[in-house]
């Protein structure tokens, strides 16, 4: 069995009286691609923000390689080898590509002075690696001048710079063209081939079905399904299941009554 990289135990998050997450368990093993699916408002983004340390959970435990963490925040999350490509890409659009790639992780030498040339070198290497090359922009181009797909490339380049162990992709194919989407999938396969893990969040079930080893369906703040690829026959199967979750009793479900019970509020 593969090593357990990260585990979220019984994570809850409430904003006032509104529960965004109610006791979610999620784990990712080394070299595994986990697809996280769910409707809008299911709590996917909240869960990702907790994993990346941006949002603090109301209750629950986070374990990295089996060890519980304390003082979890964004900096700790990145130190632990978790890199997130956020849905909004989290770029500073008035800054250069270099500054965005090294945001919060500047390459510095003596007394915090930047190693500007090294940063430019590394940035151009990363951008080539990702395959988002262009003759029109350089590492010192302003991100605001780039197209959506190119911006996504910058966000991904930032995520892979430090050989992260888990890369979280939050809706990475939203608003991308077909070729750009293909590039993202190519990237996911590359990462898996190198033995690293991916948590892939998407609402296009076909996309998720194509690349994930395991599926986790989130519904109204709870895990409605966690299934290995072998247990799910096709993407249509997953879609049927999700429709069943959204409208209980309407269509034949994928799973048994045990899960249905968990779904009820």
């Amino acid at each position, binding site marked *: 069995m593969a090593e357990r990289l990260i585990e979220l135990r019984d994570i809850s998050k409430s904003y006032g009286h509104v529960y965004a997450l109610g006791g979610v368990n999620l784990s990712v093993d080394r070299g595994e691609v986990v697809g996280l699916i769910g409707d809008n408002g299911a709590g996917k983004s909240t869960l990702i923000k907790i994993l990346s340390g941006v949002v603090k959970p109301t209750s629950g435990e986070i374990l990295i390689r089996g060890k519980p963490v304390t003082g979890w925040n964004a900096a700790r999350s990145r130190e632990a080898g978790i890199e997130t490509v956020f849905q*909004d890409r989290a770029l*500073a*659009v*008035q800054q250069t590509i270099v500054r965005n790639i090294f*945001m919060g992780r500047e390459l510095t030498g003596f007394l915090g002075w930047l190693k500007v040339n090294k940063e430019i070198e590394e940035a*151009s290497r990363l951008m080539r690696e990702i395959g988002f090359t262009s003759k*029109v922009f*350089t590492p010192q181009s302003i991100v605001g001048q780039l197209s959506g797909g190119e911006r996504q490339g910058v966000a991904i380049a*930032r995520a892979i710079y430090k050989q992260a162990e888990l890369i979280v992709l939050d809706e990475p194919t939203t608003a991308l063209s077909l070729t750009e989407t293909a590039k993202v999938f*190519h990237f996911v396969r590359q990462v898996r081939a190198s033995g690293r893990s991916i948590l892939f969040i998407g609402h296009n079930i076909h996309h998720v079905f194509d690349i994930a080893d395991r599926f986790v369906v989130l519904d109204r703040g709870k895990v409605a399904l966690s299934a290995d690829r072998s247990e799910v026959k096709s993407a249509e199967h997953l879609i049927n299941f999700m429709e069943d979750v959204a409208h209980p009793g309407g269509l034949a479900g994928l799973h048994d009554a045990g899960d249905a019970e968990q779904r009820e509020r």
Partner: protein
Amino acid sequence: MSKTMEPDLHEPSAGIPRPSPQKAWKHPSDHWVRGFILDNRASLGTLGVFIVMMAAFMIANPTVFTTWYLYRSVLTTLPVALFVVVPLVFVVTCGEIDLSFPATMGFASWVFSLVVQAGYDPFLGIVAALITGMLLGFLVGSLVVYGGLSSLIATLGMNFLLRGLIQIINEGKSMALTSLADSWAYTIFSSQLLGIPVQIFWAIAFVVLSAMLYNRHRFGAQVKVVGDNPDSAQQMGIDVKRVRVKVFVFVGIGAAIAGTFSVMINFTWWPTAGDGYLLPVLASVFVGGTPTWGGIGTVVGGAIGAVTVSFIQTGVVAAGLSGFYVQFFNGLIIILSLLGHKWNQARYR
């Protein structure tokens, strides 16, 4: 939706030949002059405004504008403004504003004067003033950042509060520091070198160091990112609050130096020390080409802006116009510069 509509996800752009590393990253405007102009257009624009303004003054009154005395008087007072304009560029880039620096100037220079009056070495006074400036900057910054207050209003309040405190304790009385003239500190920081006021050399050194901090240091990089997109900065693990407090501390340090220099020029500390700098300094930052929305800015532009603003007052009077024209020309230069910068720089979102 059938599978046929999906892109071919398994065979990505493998057949496309990869461009060679050197060629792929060649800048389209590869001539260094063009690149330099594009990278520095805000400060170059400010320089253009300054040159045009000076040319107009010189045509209006060539005799006065070719005498050294005029420039020497500007070079004595300009450094005081530079020490606060430059840190304010950092604050504005960070998406904040600090209106409390005049009171910090007054407060830090008060501490300096107290130490000197008590008979201690002025160097000790300078150290005390710097510590005071840092503490006040930290206080103002913490109030804004951890109190979650609007920096515009909170720093305005702190300016009144600190100035009020100075007035209450001193009851309007000034302090004469005649012993300063014989001190080493005066020779080093306030004398003349080859007929040039020595303050300007310190101010230039400060501007150069700050420009390097802004462009080549982690501090400047994080200030820009925080001003550009604080949410992203936080998601990438930057301690946004700490960066914000740091820029206010930087203003405190600059204001302490500025206040101390102004006392050393006059040998006198007034309870109003620093008050007159509020609006000219703010104008300099924006005339210099730092936009109000945060994320970008220019230290060198701010410094040129300060030079421009200092010359307006001297220039208008020296050109033979009555003092009543000063404010009008101040306003004219500010508006023209803003229009120029608006045309000169695009805002990316």
